[in-house]
Every structure is written in C-alpha cells, then in structure tokens.
C-alpha cells in the first residue's frame, strides 16, 4: 500500500511501487487530466505538479512520491469554476484537439508559480518540453501571458 497526496487528499493505493504516477492517477484514482503520450518523458502530455514543480508523471514511479504534494489538472479547477490558468486557456480558445493542453496548463502553472511575470522568451523556453501537434502554440503562449496578467 502506498499513500499518495493528490489534490490535497491523501489516498491509499494498492499498486506496484514501480507503477508510474500516470497510471496511478488514471487507472486507480480515475483522474483524466494527465494523458498518456509517450511513456518516455518526451512529450509532456502527462505533466503534473509534485511539490509545485512540473514533472512527467509517465516516468515518475509512485514509490518516490510518499508524503509529497501532487497536483493534477483536476486540482486547478472544474468546468464550473476553472482555475486562473484554465480560464486564460479558455479565454484564448487555446485548444484544438486539446489532448496536450492539460500538460501545457500544468507546465504553465509551474512557470507562473515560480515566475509570475515571465517574458515571451522565458515562456517559450519553459514550455519546450511539451509537444503540441495541432499547432495551437501561439494561442498557448497567449494564454500563458494572459494568465500572468490576470489575477
């Protein structure tokens, strides 16, 4: 048994300690926010926050996470009450298929938590680990800038 603190709630999981966090979130806790993209830490679709820092959940075994604070997309807001970064992405209509966007939002959240007013170059650099295939990049950048602007 492993205890995971996810979105402020501690939950007990009956899972192999080698299980990557991604599958614990999706399969055991039924959270959709983190997506499977590559399983290799190359695309960022699975990005979540661990103690406020962005990590790729597909390559992070749950054995390393006891006592740490995990935040997923669901921890930021709901459709009725989206969080600040989610609001900014919605306002900029920063999605096409949207599959990569949860990871983008988590990556942006990590950036803004540490650097409340990033430059355009800082945003591009910070987001470089996350892939988007629809080509929504310009809107994603605008959404991060908007989130930095708006309370």
């Amino acid at each position, binding site marked *: 048994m492993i205890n995971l603190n996810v979105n402020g709630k501690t939950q007990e999981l009956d899972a192999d300690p080698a299980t990557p966090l991604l599958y614990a979130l999706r399969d055991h806790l039924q959270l959709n926010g983190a997506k499977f993209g590559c*399983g290799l830490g190359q695309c960022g*679709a699975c990005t979540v926050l661990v103690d406020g820092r962005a990590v790729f959940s597909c390559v992070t075994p749950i054995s390393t996470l006891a006592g740490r604070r995990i935040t997923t997309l669901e921890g930021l807001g709901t459709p009725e009450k*989206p969080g600040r970064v989610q609001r900014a992405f919605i306002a900029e209509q920063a999605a096409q*298929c949207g*599959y*990569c966007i*949860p990871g983008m939002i988590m990556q942006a959240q990590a950036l803004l938590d540490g650097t409340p007013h990033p430059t355009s170059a800082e945003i591009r650099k910070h987001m470089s680990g996350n892939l988007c*295939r629809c*080509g929504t990049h310009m809107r994603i*950048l605008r959404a991060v800038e908007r989130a930095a602007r708006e309370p």
Partner: protein
Amino acid sequence: MNRRSFIASSGALVVSFSLLPRVAAAQAGKLPGSLSQEPMLDAWIRIAADGRITVFTGKAELGQGIKTALIQVAAEELVVDPARIELVTADTARTPDEQYTAGSQSMQESGTAILHAAAQTRAVLTGLAAKRLGVPAERLSVRDGAVNGVAYGELVAGEALHVRAQPQSPLRDPAGRTVMGKPLPRVDIPAKLTGQTIYVQDLRLPGMVHARVLRPPSYGARLRALDTAQAARMPGVLKVMRDGSFVALVAEGEFQAISAVRALAKAAQWDEHATLPESKEIYQKIRTLPSQDSVIHENGKSGSGAAMLEAEYLRPYQMHASIGPSCAVALYRDEALTVWTHSQGVYPLRAALAEMTGMPGERIRCIHMEGAGCYGHNAADDAAADAALVARAVPGRPVRVQWMREDEHGWEPYGPAMVSRARGRVSAEGTVEDFQYELWSNTHSTRPGPAGYLASAWQVQKPFAPPPPRAIPQPAGGGDRNAIPLYKFAASRVVHHFVTEMPLRVSALRALGAYMNIFSIESFMDELAAAARADPVEFRLRHLQDPRAQAVVRTAAERFGWQDWKKQPGRGRGFGFARYKNLAAYTAVACEVEVDRDSGRVRVGRVVAANDSGDIVNPDGIVNQIEGGIVQSTSWTLHEAVAFDRTRITSRDWGGYPILRFPDLPESIEVHLVNRPGQPFLGTGEAAQGPTAGALGNAIAHATGTRVRELPITAARLRQVLGA
C-alpha cells in the same frame, strides 16, 4: 434482430430511430450537401415535445471545432440560442452515414445539409403554426425557438419532420444573421481543459479491462515462437490471446498490461525480412517502381523547347504523429459488438470490422469518441480492430486498447514519399508560356472499408490482403491533389505517375499530395519569376484570373508589408498561394525567415496569412485552423522525415522523429479572413499546409541565395547545402 432491439441489448443508453433506406436523391433533383445521401429532415434534426433540439451529423469532432460550427449553422437557421442545441456526432446507430470526416469537407457536406435541413425545419414549423393560428405563414415571425410565441416543441407533433428535404430552402438573409459569422467559444474546450471524460482514452466502463497488443517489430514479421508462461503468471493478467501473429494480452490494470506485454515481447521470436528499400535510394525507388501514368491536365501546346527551367522536388514519408497514441474500447456481448473509437469513419470501420470478424454489420455499432488530433488516417481504425478482436475473446467485459508510442510511430500509415519534376519557360513578356509538371506517388488513401487495410487483419491466422490501391480521381485528387496549378499558363501539361507498389504503409495525411505539389509549384513559381525578373507576388497575380484568388494574394502581401520589406543579409521573405483542391478554401501565406549559415538553423519570423473559406460560420475557428496548419506545416517542412533501415522503421519515438517545439515557432502569426456571406462553405482544415511550405521554401531561398528542393529543410541539410 432489428437495430432497435440490438441497441437495447447492448445496453447503450440511447434512443434509437431508424434511418430510412436511402432513396435515390436524383428523383427530386440534387439536394444540398449530405442531404443528397440522407434526405429525411428528421435524420438531421429532431425536436422533442419539451422543446429539446437534437441535431445529428455523421461527421466527427477531430479537434477542428466542427461541433461548434455545426451548432452555429443549426442555431442560425432554427433561430434559437446555440446553447439549446444538442449535437450528436458520428454513431452508426444514431447518425446519418457521411463516410469519413476528411478532406476539409465537413462544412460543405454536413454543414450544408444542416443549414438547409434547419431552414426547412423552420419552414415546416412555421407552416404548422400558420395552420394552428389561422394566420398566413408569411405574416408569422420566428424568434428564439418559437413562432409568434408558440414554442417549437408545442408545434411539432408525430411525424411532422419525417419528410424529405427539398432542393431549395428558405435560407435567412445573411445580413440579418445573429450566430453565423460571429465567433462562438468552442463548446468542447472547457470540459477538455478540466479533465472531464471527453476522449476515448478517458472512457471507463464498469468491469473494463486493459489490453495491449504485441505488435511485430517490422512489416511482415511472422511470429516463430512465443513463450507466454511468464507473462501469463504476472499480476493482474487475465489472458494472453494469439491468432496467427496477432498477440494481445489482457489484464485488470493498465500498467499491469503494459508490464506483462513487455515481458511477452522478450519471450517472442519473430522471423523478419529485409523488405524495405535503402532509405537513401527511396526517391529513385519511387520513380522507378511500376506506375499507372495519366495526363491529368493539358492546355495549349506544351512540349520541349529551348531554355526550359527544370527542377526536382522531394518529400519524405511523414507521420500523423498524434500526441495521444490510438485507443479504442470494445464490448462484445450477446453476439453484438460495440466499439468506441476515434476513427474518422464509423460506418466504413463497421464494414471493415464485419468483414474481419465475420459478424453481420448490423450486429456492430461504432460510436465516435474524440481522440488526440489525427490529421488524417492514423492508427485509430487499427486500434478499434485490435479492441474488437480482443473483446471477442473476453465476452461481457469492455476492453480498452491503447497503443504504445513505439507502435503508433512504427505502424501508423504515413503520408507517402513523393517526387515531383517541374519544367517551364517564361516569354519575353514575362509570362509562363510553357509549364510541365510530373509527380510520382503512392496512393494517399488506404482507409478501411476493406478489412485488408487494418493492421491486425494482416497478422491474424487467416489474414486479409489489402486490396489493390486506387487513385483518388480529379478534381480532388490524391497524390495529384493541387498538381494542376490554379495559375493560367499559355501551355501546360501535368502527369500523375500513380505508383502501385507500397514499400511502406501509407495513407491519408492532412492535405494529401497537395502539401508536396503546392510546395513544388510555389517553389517553381519563384524560380520562374526570377527568370522573368519579376516580383514573386506580382508574378503570381499576372497568372491568376480568379478574383477571389487575387484578393487573398493581395491581402496577405499588403498585411505583410511585402512592398516595403527591406532585404538584409541572412534574411529572406517568401510567398505561397493555393486554392485547396482547386475547389475549396483560398490561402496565401507570406513569411520572413533568418538563416544562420553556420548552424543551418532557420528562424521563422512573421507569418501573415489571408484566407477565403467562403461563408464564414465561426471566424475564430477558421483562424485557429489556419494558425495550426501554418505551425504544423512549418514542422513538416523544417523538421520531419520517417527514418527506416532495410527491415524496420527506426523512427519509434519523439527522439527518432523530432517535431517542432516551442523554441522553433514563428515569431508571430497573423491570419486575415475574407468573408463571403451567402456563398458556399469552403473547407479550411487543410488549406494552409501547402502555401506555408511554399512560402518557407521561398523565404529560405531568398535568405541564402540557394534553393533547397528536398524536404525537410533541416538545419543539418541546410548547413550541408550552404557549406558545399
């Protein structure tokens, strides 16, 4: 068993209705859009007594925003708030059969059908109100889902909407529109951005199990030996199934399935053969394989002459490369199969699954659920077939199959490698007097329908052979899409060499051959313009007669500031234009680049596009598509090529197939729309790819003085070319 009882027995919670057999549309004259295939109004629009409005489309949301646009179309003609409309998308039990969501045709086909069906539905309702109120219909007014205050739900009764559509519709005056032509926030975005269950990847059904397929390491590999003992003993494993060389493993948990299939992979021995060409010789191969040759266009007296400019262009195999590997959920119960899939064509998929399983088609239901963007025919149908095969082996339990990244990269059908050759000559007056173009390409569609186009169908004990490839005919074309320039030349001749043997698995990748043909023709236009000592934009305008084409070219050039642009060392500007398929949206792209000669790196600066997609439904939706197309094409053009050795595909992850990342983005992208209210919808989804490639190639040539005709124009290639 009829459809209604099948649905009831499959446990799905839908209200079914039966679509009448298709009546020959010709009887009543040509009906607009997909109404010609499905003429009954209530196949498209239903209004319940409580006023709920449901609109049905056979097209699917692929991330292009089609749901929102179709809701806008219906809301406009029904005169209701868009929020009141529920839209049901591609589902073989509920919606019209509109074949594939592909080719930028959803607005022309489904959008046009719904536009007219909604207008005619409004007319039926107005007629009912006239009867009820004893007032002539033309004196009634329709507002907010009611006729003179009587709600639609009260008016509609029985089979009132079960009528055939008419060729003509009382469409609203574009000048009075309240919903169409205005940006409406996408209906699907908030749920996607908060982790709701939207994607088939997120679907969890009671009792669902996870399956993984052990894909062969290469095309045609046969399983020689497989020791399943160790994997079968691993935690959570329920079953290892084998059918010929098709091997799948079922487990309770997803990571359990992944761990066990990895163990299975180690215990598998495959017979592999070096069936692939030398990758260095691929273009030579494409040009010399047997081909069916056809002259697809000829005007004037085209022939050899003095001083012809000549150029050859090359395009590698390129991937759809969805961010989310393909996925499907299938349930086999009571001899009926339900498949949740992100296929682009639920009806053709159903036919393929029926053929593969031997089940009658009416016992199979395919329901579209979104996946990650597909950009054409990727592995969506293959994953659905996998799920169907496994589900039949574990009846009563829903089976979820998701491909692993290396499977998606290695097995999806690629956009075909292509070769093109252009020859041309300009007259003393500076116009093209002869233009000749040839292209060599495999087919650009191996979509199911036929089971022989499904990956797993090749691997089962009794395999299904792929049918012989067929070319997609002009005017849309496949490999030859946009091979005929929209420019008017004194003489021209275009030849399509349809290469029938396929060394790699290929199918439809967004824009099909248009991407390569437009890259080639737009590159060559600049070469001809240089020969004529003409400005590239002015030279294009000289050869364009269509005023709408001229308008987007002028708009893009003006907004970019083409005329006042000053050349600086290492910097260049480029222009590209096409009308997609020569019958859909018009797009012109101007861009500037800076090339670092030492590294070969291209930095894309400003990109300015102009687009005419006909009657605009959702302007922000079009801008989003064009922006996305520009970025995706920038990635294809500067970064992407599938790598392979004689036996295997070696691009198996994002390291082996790099795509554009944030630091490679253009500095800015501007999109200017030309609206044509009341004109037909023109598909947008694939309109930007070709013009962007042309503009980039031309800008790089302008920046460096050297033209690169082989895609992708990577930093390594450019460094090599510039260093030589």
